[in-house]
């Protein structure tokens, strides 16, 4: 049986297109067949865009048939987390408050992918306003993990991770504010890359916590992560925090190996709260680095223990400010009824439109910023953030790459942590520090637990060292040579 096109990597598809062995329309049809076969169960998509995609694929095929130069991204199906604005395509953020919002502009990351010939297959489900680690906070119901439909895909970019894992799309974009790309990538057995803060424009990314929000990629290979980053990275005058520094070639040095690379194992990231199977798998992966010629040592990040606390003050504080814009005036929901005045309308609209987790974080952030509490909470959290950054600076004097598990556990059952916010927040304990420091990190599949659920290893690099990060990740991926295919797909066939 030949592998369905939708299960190939972007690099494999680009080669097939170049050789005339596949067309953009055929690739898209394969992706649509898979969506039809599995999305009733997985529920990764909120808004599929089949007609737009078909038109786009036809255009691409017409263009490619002229023999014109071809972008390595041309014809590759891409899904977007529903926090990226798409001109003319509904964008909900997983929230009732934006249920009928149709943006009049495209997010820059999508503009760049589209310009390079990517085909949008649809908008994916996510935790409301990207707040969550299980996708259970979506107003449109949970996404189901393709590896076990009773389990969560992780979050907040759960739909994007699940869609890539199940072959419903080849690539997807997500966002990572505290781990929302890396953690679902880990739980769904795909590659999730969070670049350096500012490396990819946030224009058109509906804001959650602006000093932490990072556009990230979901792919089924490290090479594809490099190819996708290549397209979306770069300065954008529309995002004042986007870095105006050259974009290097992220694919060229992938095969250079890890000989002599100094790899630091984050000591605090093992032990309490980490499932034994996760620890064993990550340690085995670390042994492989040593086997490949890397120089492996142990490193301490003393303030990482406080990173979670700092994050749950900083992110909600920024969110409480960012989400003030949902006031029932310019877009989104307005609560029905005869409101006494505009302020009463705003209270009612926000009470009706936001779900429980979003309300929790708005309240938390409002409190942390309020008179009398600002210094002790938000102010102190910002200082701890400085100390977390210094920890990384010290660690990167001795090491090129740091490693830890991505998540302390594999995918948990839907409902298991839904009523315990603190237990849910602990999912992000290993991913949050990189957001506070703005450094790039990637989750790569490194094995399965006894229940057949994926385990991910997280690699972290200094700011703007994505090339080193990808090269290290690629070396591990090649050495492990895992076949990450959810059992669900065995029943689907082509």
């Amino acid at each position, binding site marked *: 049986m030949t592998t369905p096109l939708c299960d190939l990597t972007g690099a494999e598809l680009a080669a097939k297109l170049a050789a005339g062995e596949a067309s953009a329309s055929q690739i898209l049809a394969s992706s649509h067949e898979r969506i039809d076969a599995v999305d009733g169960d997985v529920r990764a998509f909120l808004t599929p865009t089949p007609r737009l995609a078909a038109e786009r694929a036809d255009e691409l095929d017409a263009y490619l048939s002229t023999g014109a130069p071809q972008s390595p991204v041309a014809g590759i199906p891409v899904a977007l987390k529903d926090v990226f604005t798409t001109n003319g395509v509904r964008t909900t953020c997983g929230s009732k408050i934006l249920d*009928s919002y*149709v943006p*009049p*502009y495209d997010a820059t990351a999508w503009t760049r992918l589209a310009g390079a010939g990517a085909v949008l297959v649809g908008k994916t489900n996510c935790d409301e306003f990207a707040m969550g680690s299980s996708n259970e906070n979506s107003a449109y119901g949970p996404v189901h993990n393709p590896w076990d439909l009773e389990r969560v895909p992780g979050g907040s970019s759960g739909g994007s991770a699940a869609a890539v894992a199940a072959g419903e799309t080849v690539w997807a974009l997500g966002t990572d504010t505290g781990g929302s790309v890396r953690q679902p990538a880990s739980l769904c057995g795909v590659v999730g890359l969070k670049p350096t*803060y*500012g490396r990819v424009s946030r224009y058109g990314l509906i804001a959650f916590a602006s*000093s932490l929000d990072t556009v990230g990629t979901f792919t089924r290979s490290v090479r594809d992560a490099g190819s996708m980053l290549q397209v979306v990275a770069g300065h954008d*005058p529309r995002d*004042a*925090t986007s*870095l105006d520094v050259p974009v290097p070639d992220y694919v060229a040095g992938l095969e250079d190996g890890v000989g002599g690379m100094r790899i630091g194992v984050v000591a605090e990231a093992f032990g309490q709260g980490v499932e034994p199977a996760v620890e064993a798998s990550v340690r085995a992966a670390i042994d492989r680095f040593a086997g490949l010629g890397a120089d492996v040592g142990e490193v301490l990040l003393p*303030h990482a223990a*406080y990173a*979670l*606390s700092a994050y*749950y*003050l900083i992110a909600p504080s920024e969110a409480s400010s960012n989400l*003030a814009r949902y*006031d029932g*005036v*310019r*877009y*989104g*929901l*307005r609560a029905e009824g005869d409101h*006494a*005045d*505009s*302020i*009463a*309308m705003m*209270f*009612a609209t*926000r*009470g*009706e439109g*936001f779900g429980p987790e979003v*309300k*929790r974080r*708005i*309240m938390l952030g*409002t*409190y942390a910023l*309020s008179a009398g509490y600002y210094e*002790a*909470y938000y102010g*102190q*959290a*910002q*200082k*701890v*953030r*400085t*100390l977390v950054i210094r920890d990384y600076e010290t660690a990167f004097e001795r090491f090129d790459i740091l490693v830890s598990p991505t998540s302390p556990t594999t995918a948990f059952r839907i409902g298991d942590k839904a009523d315990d*916010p*603190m237990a849910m927040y602990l999912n992000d304990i290993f991913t949050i520090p990189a957001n*506070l*420091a*703005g*450094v790039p990190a990637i989750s790569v599949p490194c094995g399965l637990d006894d229940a057949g659920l994926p385990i991910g290893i997280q690699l972290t690099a200094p700011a703007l060292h994505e090339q080193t990060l990808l090269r290290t990740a690629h070396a591990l991926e090649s050495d492990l040579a895992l076949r990450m295919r959810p059992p669900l797909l065995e029943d689907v066939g082509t």
Partner: protein
Amino acid sequence: MPVQIDIDHVAKLARLQLRDDEKVQLAAQLGQILEHAARIGEVAAEDVPPTASPIPRANVYRNDEIEPSLPVDEALRNAPERTGDRFGVPRIAETGS
């Protein structure tokens, strides 16, 4: 010890209408989360400067050039209520006598 917070006051600052059951639940959950978060107070950081953004930067200005902007109809397309070329809202001030 869980932190006690004045839910009504914070909800008012946040312009958030909450049902009574939500208030009870939020008081308990926020108390627990803040108890955990308050651990950052253990860190001796008096002389540490705060970080607001991982990229230190001063103001970024764009060139003072006129560029095309969103047409009025596009800008108003998602408005819950439109009044002419403006966003329509319930009254915001007394009309006076």
